[in-house]
């Protein structure tokens, strides 16, 4: 009845309803009560320990990341491929330096069991890609003189890196470390190529074989630090 509205008083039911409604809304809406949310606090310094950096071990066979590499069971059989001879690199680089107009930058470096391949731009001209091979003498060769040859240029557009940035001893150390740690595996090739570095920057890419074939790739920084394992 309209004339009574200005002074209408709530009934008991309305009061109870309102009280319950207010309590419910306050409980649901007020922070910290009734909802399934959580309070998040800034951490104390003790709750967030400082991460540590991995340091290069003196002996690369002790590289912690090698623990990620699990040798397969090959019934004690040795790998079918010959291990890359990392120690060839110093003499191969010396042979490269002996050519006319030796390169200061490479586009690829690959070390195998008996050879080292260099790819570079002839005369530093981008696109004029040449391949130079340093190959050990065959056992049947009476002179036992390593062979070094340079191909004719072909077109190739590849990213370069500086030879001066290389430590020639590292591939040998890596090969020895892997042979020591995994006697039934062999580093079939040791490559240095930006295209094979998979976002790591410029790193050594080492393909590991066992008696069953290639089973892993080891990535190592230029100083030999083994940074990642890709195991199939």
């Amino acid at each position, binding site marked *: 009845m309209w004339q009574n509205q200005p*002074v209408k008083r709530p009934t008991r039911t309305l009061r109870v309803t309102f009280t319950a409604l207010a309590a419910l809304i306050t409980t649901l809406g*007020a922070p910290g009560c009734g909802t399934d*949310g959580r309070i998040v606090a800034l951490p104390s*310094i*003790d709750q967030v320990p400082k991460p540590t*950096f991995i340091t290069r071990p003196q002996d690369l066979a002790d590289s*912690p990341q090698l623990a990620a590499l699990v040798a397969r069971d090959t019934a004690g059989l040795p790998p079918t491929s010959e291990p890359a001879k990392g120690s060839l690199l110093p003499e191969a680089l010396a042979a490269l330096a002996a050519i006319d107009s030796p390169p200061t930058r490479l586009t690829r470096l690959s070390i195998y069991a008996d050879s080292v391949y260099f790819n570079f731009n002839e005369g530093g001209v981008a696109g004029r890609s040449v391949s130079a091979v340093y190959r050990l003498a065959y056992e049947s060769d009476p002179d036992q003189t390593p062979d070094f040859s340079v191909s004719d240029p072909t077109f190739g557009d590849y990213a370069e890196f500086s030879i001066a940035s290389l430590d020639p001893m590292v591939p040998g150390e890596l090969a020895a470390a892997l042979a020591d740690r995994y006697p039934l595996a062999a580093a079939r090739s040791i490559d240095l190529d930006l295209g094979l570095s998979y976002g790591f920057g410029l790193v050594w890419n080492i393909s590991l074989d066992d008696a069953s074939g290639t089973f892993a790739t080891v990535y190592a920084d230029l100083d030999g630090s083994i940074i990642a394992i890709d195991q199939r």
Partner: protein
Amino acid sequence: MLTNPAAILLAVILVLLPLRACAANRPETIRTGKPAEGLDSITWTAAVANDGRLAIRIDYTFTDDEPRNMDIRLPKGARYLAVNGKPTPADTGVYATATVSRLATITYELPGRVARYSDGAVVQLAGAYGDGDLEFAAQVGSAGIPLRLDGDQAMFVCPRCYLENIGYGDTPVSGAIYAPGAAQAELLFAGLEQPRSQASTGASGQASSEAILFAGVDPGTDAVSMLAVIPASAVPDLARRDGSADDAVMNFRDRFDDPNDVFRNASPPAGKPSSTAAVLLFLLVAGLGLAFVLGWVWNVGTERSARRAADLAGVPGDRGPAISPGNLEAALAGLVVGDRGSGRASVIAATILELARREILTISGSDERRFTLTVPAGATGETTFENAVIAQLRPLGTAPDAPVETVLTGPPLWHTRAPAVTRSLEKALIREGLKQRLVHLNRPLALAAPVSIAMGVVALIGVDGVTIHAWIAIIIGPLLAALALKRSGVSLTAAGKRHRDEWSAYAAVLHRDPELANAAPMSIHELGKPLVYAAALGAAPVAAEALSSTHAVER
């Protein structure tokens, strides 16, 4: 007010606004919504080396011990991956898997994410993909893809997408960046809500243990990106680039159009403007609360007084006043008493009866089931409300002193015009009540609209995290206030309450008179003024019903 839904809703909005504002303003308080199922929290920590390398540790804490498969997606260039301390292989350096339970700790190093400038070094754990990203555009060509944040280059990838059995919801994220001078670091996050940060010099106080701590909420448990500016001296072995750190940050941020990619600054722990706003809101709500309590106490007091007065006046005993307590217009008596009476009441009926009593109009007929009401030409009342009633009795509801006679039969007296008559006379009675100072506007409700706007504005300009609620207060609040004011916009003045007590007591006496209770409208000349007041106070339901604009009125 308590019977007024609009007022109740408005009160709830206005109470919740400062509550939420205060909660949002407390710097140490970060609140999640519904937590992500399966994932309890993420802790992300990094240390910055002199050459800019980052050592990163991410702890995923699950809510159960169930073993779950974890697809680990690493940012490009991540090295030394380990899961729970165990070195782990990664396909092409970015994809790995592990089975974990309860806690998964991912650690790796990440070079190439810090750029040093003259004024600082930018730690960038954010990437972009789309046409605006040169590398991406080179890969896919111009595909018309807008620039978006790349989750794969973020602090961590979308946990919900790569971790098994993680539901959609909010996940708490906390962590730290360790770097010399980190106390001065500025952190900006994308995908992290309510970010907060705080400097820590570490337990030893050495620069090497200096860190900036942070926390926030990852809504939807998606990838979170970060840009941090640390002192340039933190990375002395890193080559310096041209430009400034601020420009580098701005250039990166400005490439994005999508509001979801906006970076938010992790606010310092004590935001002064927010505190001021919170205090203002608190004072506002405290003032309103005090006014409400005082009003309630006053109301209770006056009700008790009224009951005492009614007791003294003979209600419910036999000592009630036999004569009316004054010559207050019957309609106004009905206004002040309201529903304190019982039975059916109508101030319109009372006014018609009063006009009939003074022979300004006539009521004829045998009984209340069939009667004729005649309003002579030129009939006028003595009060504003009487004239308003007479005007409504005229065919067009206009001038009371129409030069023609109006004859109405009833019941029903008002037919289809009843609702319009009710609305019109309601306003007229309220106006008369205001004029006679028996009622006044309901001040708290009248203030509700400006208060609602003020609270919303204060919340908007000074408090973080209550924007939607504040907008509701600003826009919906005044509408609710207007509705509430319309519904219960007046309350009794002191004089009105005094009249209410007196007339309530008189109403109790009238209620005990069976002759009044059964009186038909045409009995007005026999029963006189008591019937007029009885109709207004609910003691003459038969007459009231017959003449009321609502006819069969139920109380």
